């Protein structure tokens, strides 16, 4: 008689997808430190969002030293603007500062001549969706376009919106986006192409003029 073993079950929690979370200081506490002019605010910001800000800068500058410098400048600028500003979302706030600083550095240095950076690759393709406009770059026009972008993005499905912003705001490469989202590069490329077409149609439909 062949003895047939019984079946057993085990639980493997490690194999579940993990959602990233942190054990860092709460954002509200960090902002309070800024408000109270406690320099621990900078340490806490760096601990929690240093890598995030570095990634944003690096995507634009492609240079570690310059990116680190941008990140350090981010803490300084944040120190100077909080208060009076009280950001509701600290990560987005810091990210925007880093992004602007990195872009300024990008324009100021010889980066522009290098070409082939993420910023060139990304924005060169997106520019074509913009309507004809004067070359003047004013804060007002940027705001108008930004508001139109928000209305457009609000209509997109979440995933499509995420990928669009990963590409054109955070300036991640297509392969990085595909890898992180578990998709093929071709699929990401096609998705972005479709989203750009939609944006173009949207701006035309809104009669968007700068």
């Amino acid at each position, binding site marked *: 008689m*062949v003895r047939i073993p*019984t079946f057993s079950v085990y639980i493997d929690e490690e194999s579940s997808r993990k959602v990233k979370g942190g054990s860092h200081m709460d954002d509200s506490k960090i902002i309070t430190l800024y408000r109270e002019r406690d320099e621990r605010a900078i340490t806490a910001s760096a601990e929690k969002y240093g890598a995030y800000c570095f990634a944003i800068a690096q995507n634009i500058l492609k240079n570690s030293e310059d990116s680190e410098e941008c990140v350090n400048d981010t803490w300084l600028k944040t120190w100077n603007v909080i208060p009076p500003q009280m950001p509701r979302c600290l990560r987005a706030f810091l990210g925007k500062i880093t*992004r602007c600083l990195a872009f300024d550095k990008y324009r100021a240095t010889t980066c522009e001549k290098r070409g082939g950076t993420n910023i060139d690759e990304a924005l060169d393709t997106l520019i074509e969706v913009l309507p004809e406009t004067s070359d003047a*770059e004013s804060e007002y026009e940027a705001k108008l376009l930004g508001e139109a972008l928000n209305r457009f993005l609000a209509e997109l499905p979440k995933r499509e919106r995420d990928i669009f912003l990963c590409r054109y705001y955070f300036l991640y490469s297509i392969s990085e986006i595909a890898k992180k989202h578990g998709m093929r590069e071709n699929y990401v490329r096609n998705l972005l192409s479709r989203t750009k077409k939609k944006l173009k149609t949207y701006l035309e439909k809104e009669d968007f003029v700068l």
Partner: protein
Amino acid sequence: MKKALLFHAFDYVRDDFLESAAGSMEVSVRENINLKQFGIIAACLLLAIGIVFGAMAQNDTPELILEHRILEKAERPWSVGGWNATFHDFTFGNIYEHFDCGSSIALSRWTITVEADIAEILPDAYTDPVSGMPYRIIRFYVNDVIAGENVPTEFYFRLEESLSCELEQFDRFIIGIKQVGVENYPMYNETQGQFEGFSLLFETSNLRGAEYGAFIAFDGEFDHGLAMTDALWKLDGWYDASTDYIGEFRHDYAVYPFENGDSLNAVKSKIKKFVRENPCGTNMRVYTVADFHNERTASIFDYINSVENGIFTQKMYRFDGDLYLHYTLYINGFETPQNIELVLNEHGNAKVGTNRKLFTDEDMASVPELAPILETLDFDAITPPHTENIEDFEVYSCHASGFYARKNKYSEMFGVIKIRWQLVENNAVCYDDLYILVSVDGTQQTVERDQLPNIIGENSNVVFREYNKPYYTLNSGVDD
């Protein structure tokens, strides 16, 4: 310049949009567990026992976790006489069971309907390990839930290979989905030669009637049904045509009322209206059972796991909102009438529906061996005993099988060899059969089918078809 303008325009993007996008780059797609691979099997029985536990309130819906993993399994080759099989015991973490709870009249294809995008098409070829049917597996991301509740944001979907096409050309899909099995349904990866488990694996079994709306693709506007009768989509008033085509409207053939050329939004709102007017149980609930180990059910599972000389296969199915776990005892790979049924309801109550214990461990150790008998059967020497003018017939099929039987726990145990023929004359197929009772001491005797209920009790393996009666004609499509 334009580039700078564009760059700075993004400064005004909403923080919550940026948060979401940043978050999407932080969660990695989990990599496959690198486990030892197993070879291709000749025949297999899949023994998948998932134990549901956890005590959660009915309204407290936990996160539905999408997983794709290589299944770690123990392979138990079983070979007795000329009969070979391989048992595959899958072990996997199984915290929650997920399935759609349709009503009893319709395990409906449309009770959960989603608008989805393709996230990934898995490159390998898969087959269902039970049916052998080939599939492609696609990971879909849910953009919108058109009907249903507690639907996951992502799911795996299996699409019959015969219906596959270049899906990337389409923008959007609307799919009526039905879960395949429960969590960690195993599919065989033909390319890699391994079993892989998919949590939240769905299909729509109405694909052959995809013109009925179970799987439709959009490219700007509704235009493609992935159907075998593609022309149906193009008809004006195709909804009426489809309804006529399937005759009387049945709930298990959902015909979505939309038109060729409808926009995505129009299709969605029509489906929502249709589902509202034809309610059929739309919840996909996480099914957990509180007090799973109550006194009665705990002892059942203790018993099932303690049996040494046999093994229980499990069948799990839903009926009317309840979960049924049906266990059947197999000894030496042959079925017995010993079964246990547990009924678990959504309120966390578990009860024993049936507990038919016929064989003790000692009994199981002393049942007669059937495999050697099957192995040495000389089919050419056995004549179908009940068919008149047998010389006019050709043997279309001959099938021999074995099972154990016992009228009650006090009566004699028997092994039973059943031989069944399909015999053909002028394309008409008749049945014949022969039963051999095998006693514990190995004695064999042929018995008439009519005698069996008195000897071994009622048994589903004993089928009372009329002899000398044509049941179907060949090429009519009727299958036995």
